[in-house]
């Protein structure tokens, strides 16, 4: 069944206290699967299935949990990934595969796009540190491959944070942050976000932050109403 149909039916089925009906687990899982293949998303559905897994441990299915976590990464900068993590119990965290997605999430949450693209493209060089999270970097590409639209979702995320950070950005840097995107792709994304090409396309004008982010001195302003009470009650000073 298609995502839209499933979503429609499920929204009625998880209304009110029925959200906690364990019978919904199978339909919810099917819907998550549809999200993965059709590149769709529904916050209520993904969080509901995690809650049901917590309350009905016998129904727990880690493959679905991994799909959910990856889907929440695709809607960054929303906090859905953080919310999803809060709905996974400690005793589930032993799984290496789950851990790997958490580590990937940490990279994306800290906007470390350079590392992300290296992981995706297989050019990542793991350090020898014992805390190195990506000892087998090839795994990451494998994990995200079935997720339709994952890289595009990250590109949208990149553009959204650039939007609030940069006034002008050089095309070379923009392309790097977008994982070595081609000129055509960069131009298309810039157009979508309303960025203007300048200097023969070598630079994009993003937004006029200059106008809003200004050094300011805020002085105290005293309203007459604040002191009116006091003024009416003023007495003559003591005559000594």
């Amino acid at each position, binding site marked *: 069944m298609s995502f839209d149909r499933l979503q429609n039916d499920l929204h009625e089925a998880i209304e009110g206290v029925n959200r906690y009906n364990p019978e919904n687990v199978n339909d919810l899982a099917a819907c998550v699967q549809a999200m993965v293949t059709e590149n769709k998303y529904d916050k209520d559905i993904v969080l509901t299935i995690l809650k049901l897994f917590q309350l009905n441990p016998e129904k727990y299915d880690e493959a679905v949990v991994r799909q959910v976590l990856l889907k929440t990464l695709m809607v960054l*900068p929303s906090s859905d990934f953080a919310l999803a993590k809060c709905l996974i119990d400690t005793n589930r965290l032993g799984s290496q595969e789950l851990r790997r997605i958490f580590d990937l999430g940490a990279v994306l949450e800290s906007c470390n796009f350079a590392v992300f693209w290296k992981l995706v493209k297989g050019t990542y060089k793991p350090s020898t540190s014992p805390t190195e999270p990506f000892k087998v970097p090839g795994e990451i590409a494998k994990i995200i491959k079935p997720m339709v639209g994952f890289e595009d979702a990250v590109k949208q995320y990149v553009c959204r944070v650039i939007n609030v950070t940069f006034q002008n950005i050089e095309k070379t840097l923009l392309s790097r942050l977008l994982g070595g995107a081609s000129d055509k792709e960069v131009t298309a994304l810039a157009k979508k976000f309303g960025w203007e090409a300048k200097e023969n396309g070598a630079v994009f004008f993003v937004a006029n932050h200059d106008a809003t982010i200004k050094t300011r001195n805020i002085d105290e302003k005293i309203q007459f109403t604040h002191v009116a009470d006091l003024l009416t009650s003023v007495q003559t000073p003591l005559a000594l």
Partner: protein
Amino acid sequence: MSRRVDFDMNVEEIMERRRNNTFSGEEDGVPNEVADYLVYFSRMIDEQNVPEILTLYDQAFPDLTERFFRDRMWPDENVVERIIGPGNKLFIILYKELYYRQLYARNARGPLLVHRYESFMNYQELFSELLSSKDPIPLSLPNVWLWDIIDEFVYQFQAFCLYKANPGKRNADEVEDLINIEENQNAWNIYPVLNILYSLLSKSQIVEQLKALKEKKNPDSVADEFGQSDLYFKLGYFSLIGLLRTHVLLGDYHQALKTVQYVDIDPKGIYNTVPTCLVTLHYFVGFSHLMMRNYGEATKLFVNCLLYIQRTKSVQSQQPSKKNFQYDVIGKTWDQLFYLLAICLAVQPQRIDESIASQLSERCGERMMHMANGNIDEFRNAFSTGCPKFLSPTTVVYEGVNQSKEPLLRQTQSFLEGIESQMALPVLRGYLKLYTTLPTKKLASFMDVDDDHYDSFLGKLLTYKMIVNELGKESGPSMNEDEEPQTDIDFYVDRDMINIADTKVARHVSEHFLRHIQKLQEVQDVLQRLDVKP
């Protein structure tokens, strides 16, 4: 200072004269005054005399507890039934609700399993009276009592989950009973608890009504006779806040906020009439925002709540009688709020009310400095002190180690993982403060970043802006154009140059002068009244 009443020989006669029934005060050891109180109380409930009920509930009950029941419990239901006579089922249920609340409050180690069980059964009876009646039942209770019922119900559920997970809390006899209860899932199980709360919502059509109110429509148009009844409307309203709390305790922050999406935080909300309800609402909504990394939103709620508590403190402390056996929710939350506020401001400094800011720096100044320097342990401490008691409703431990802290550790961990990815922020801020413009490469070299890691370094700048702009929020930033910026420092990047803007706020001195002018006037008044002989 024992004020216990001595029974004189005439007790029985007096009782006879007062009420022509078969009750024997001496036999049951119930003082006259208490018996009179109970009879009057049940009559007022019958007559739906809300102002009287409020006094009886809010003042007389703690007062009598203090005088007669410091060292023993209130009489049990059978005695009470003999005193007030038969046919007062609803009053007996309400009385038992108070009775069990006392049992919970009195035992530092928590009540016996049997009392936990009985208390649940009593709640079930109360709610089924309310929910299965064909017509709205004729009952009127003061807001504070209605809120206390819902709040205590959620509290006892929480207490039971923590009890289940901690084998050290029970004796050998109780283990078997617990196995029994868990097998039948007939007391304090998550499903019936949620079911009761959600049923109160749907019975009262509270969500639909609040939504209509928000859209400036007549709520009666979406409500039947239950929804239009004051009792059901308020119970539904308070259940929303009870559910908010339950969802947060279960780590379900999105659901928590969704539950109260139509509860407006404004001076007209019913929650304003009950101080503990107001504090609960602000604390849990703020906490959910904190977990969703909307630090700005969380800060606002925490500060408003602290201001409210500060404002009403003098009133609260004038009622020492309330203190006896009653858990001091507001005082406890007051402390917790400071820890949570410290976290928010360490990650995202903002200007806040000056009186709160000075108290905060007095309490947590050093902690905040450590947090700003990236000390994760300090975040952990502040979080675990400030957060609610999380629970796992499915964890039962019959023997072995106490696992009641497990959910807390889990939430702390996922919170800290989020903080770690933002840990560079305070360090960045430290550098940015010193400049008005700064080339990105130069900042990178300050932070010992080589060219290979330059793009990763840019990620820190992007994270900073993402957090400050609250991109994670669904509704987007709510800031108005003319609103003063709340952050002390902001920046944007123009190609490879960081342009930094800081906002300096002049000290606010008018408050100070106003206060001192007032003081001077008071002194002058006193001086003028003095009769000084030459």
